[in-house]
């Protein structure tokens, strides 16, 4: 389930970093805006969950345009810092704006509609001979289905002439401008689409957690997303699927290492192991699992 959440989340990062060449490090911020907008509309405004979600997606996209409009003209490294700062601003705001977000006490009760649906779905599965053991099973099915549908959509989009312009921008923005492309508009579209994906990942995360607290949207979430993108290979969408599954298996699987060590040491060891695996992979396969080595070499 976490793998599917990360998969949807990293899909947007792949579109930005891998395809368009814009280093969006604020993905966790867009996810927070999506999840919180949904929860606030349901809990504080009494909206139906079904209406709150699309509106929350629009909120995240609008935030992307607002952040992107002034900062996408900056060089890649400045843009990375700006988006990272933006995500932190969102997290701090969520921590302190208690009347809206309930701060670090967390926001509860936005998922009643989902539970009803999930319960009915679980019963339906039971009636059809699929024995559901966990109440989270329906969410897992839905999140994987979502990932698959969104993956198909994004992978198809980047193969259109629209995606061709994005790839041109990644390689040389001036060349694209000289050929009559409004590159700022394309970069904004890429960022807004990615923010929408982050918002959807935020919904899945929120349904999984049942309690929304700001610290779930730590920048580390974005960093794991970037790791997935690089692990899978820049520009490769199959890579996103495989790498998000692989990284989460590694992270969660290492929880169960049977060593005679204190639990805090095991926790530290987990990250050391994951880090080592990643370093080895980058040393022997710098283009990522599914990246094209030739493209990496030609692109200097």
């Amino acid at each position: 389930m976490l793998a599917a959440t990360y998969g949807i989340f990293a899909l947007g990062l792949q579109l930005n970093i891998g395809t368009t060449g814009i280093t969006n490090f604020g993905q966790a911020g867009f996810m927070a805006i999506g999840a919180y907008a949904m929860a606030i509309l349901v809990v504080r405004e009494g909206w139906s969950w079904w209406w709150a979600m699309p509106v929350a997606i629009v909120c995240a996209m609008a935030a992307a345009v607002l952040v992107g409009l002034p900062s996408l003209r900056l060089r890649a490294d400045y843009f990375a810092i700006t988006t990272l700062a933006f995500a932190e601003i969102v997290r701090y705001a969520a921590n302190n704006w208690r009347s809206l977000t309930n701060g670090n006490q967390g926001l509860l009760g936005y998922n009643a509609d989902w539970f009803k649906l999930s319960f009915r779905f679980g019963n339906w599965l039971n009636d059809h001979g699929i024995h559901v053991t966990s109440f989270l099973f329906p969410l897992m099915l839905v999140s994987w289905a979502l990932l698959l549908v969104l993956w198909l959509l994004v992978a198809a989009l980047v193969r259109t002439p629209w995606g061709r312009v994005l790839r041109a921008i990644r390689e040389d923005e001036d060349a694209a401008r000289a050929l009559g492309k409004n590159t700022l508009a394309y970069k904004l579209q890429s960022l807004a689409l990615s923010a929408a994906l982050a918002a959807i990942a935020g919904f899945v995360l929120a349904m999984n957690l049942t309690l929304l607290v700001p610290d779930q949207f730590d920048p580390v979430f974005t960093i794991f997303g970037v790791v997935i993108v690089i692990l899978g290979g820049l520009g490769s969408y199959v890579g996103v699927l495989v790498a998000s599954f692989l990284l989460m298996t590694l992270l969660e699987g290492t929880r169960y290492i049977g060593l005679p060590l204190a639990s805090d040491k095991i926790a530290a060891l987990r990250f050391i192991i994951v880090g080592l695996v990643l370093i080895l992979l980058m040393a022997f396969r710098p283009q990522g699992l599914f990246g094209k080595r030739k493209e990496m070499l030609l692109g200097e």
Partner: protein
Amino acid sequence: MSDPPILEVEDVAKRFGGVRAVDGASFSVARGSITALIGPNGAGKSSLFNVVTGFERPDGGAVRYDGRSIYRLPPYAIARRGMVRTFQLTKTLSVMTVLDNMLLAAPRHPGERLGGSLVFAAAARRREREAREHALSLLATFALAEMANEYAGTLSGGQRKLLELARALMLEPRLVLLDEPLAGVNPTLGRRLLEHIEQLRADDGTTFLFVEHDMEVVMNHSDRVIVMAAGRVIADGEPQAVRRDEAVIEAYLGAHA
């Protein structure tokens, strides 16, 4: 000629900090001409190119293309009007195929809008097919057809210059600005490139303005020469007249004389 000029540049200025890279340059380019822009290093030729095509914001003056002001328009808007440039250091997209480089340049492509290939599926497919035909015929003219499906990064320096010109032509331009099109190109390919330029002028009436250092090429292949020095235009006329111009000789030799 009775036709108004295709490009008119009036008193254009561009400063970088305290340096006046372009310092009140004025000239015009006649429709259907092949005009050379020359001048010693640092004269402001490339800066002028950047200002005219919108890549740098000018600090003053006027630029008119086809009778309409394009002053301070963004580069993409200028390119769409039919004034297309190439770069001194070629900007072929290495990790895209030669054909994709060409298709990228196709103007008025509905599939280039977000979701355009889904919403306007039929129109996008038709445009893509047209663009592909046009691209392949241009690549054939430039002897790049066999390379169509190779990464552009595998081309030689000279072939990249050819590809950049071919790609610019995908936009169906009426004025092409070439920044040192022959730099680093072997003589055989260079000759072919010049033939293409003259052929295009003859066939479609395309106008060319190019920066070049090779005086033999300038004298033999252009019908007008504009000379810049220290950010200003110091001479403007037929090649033979410019060659004898005192100010030009002064500018080129001045530092040593």
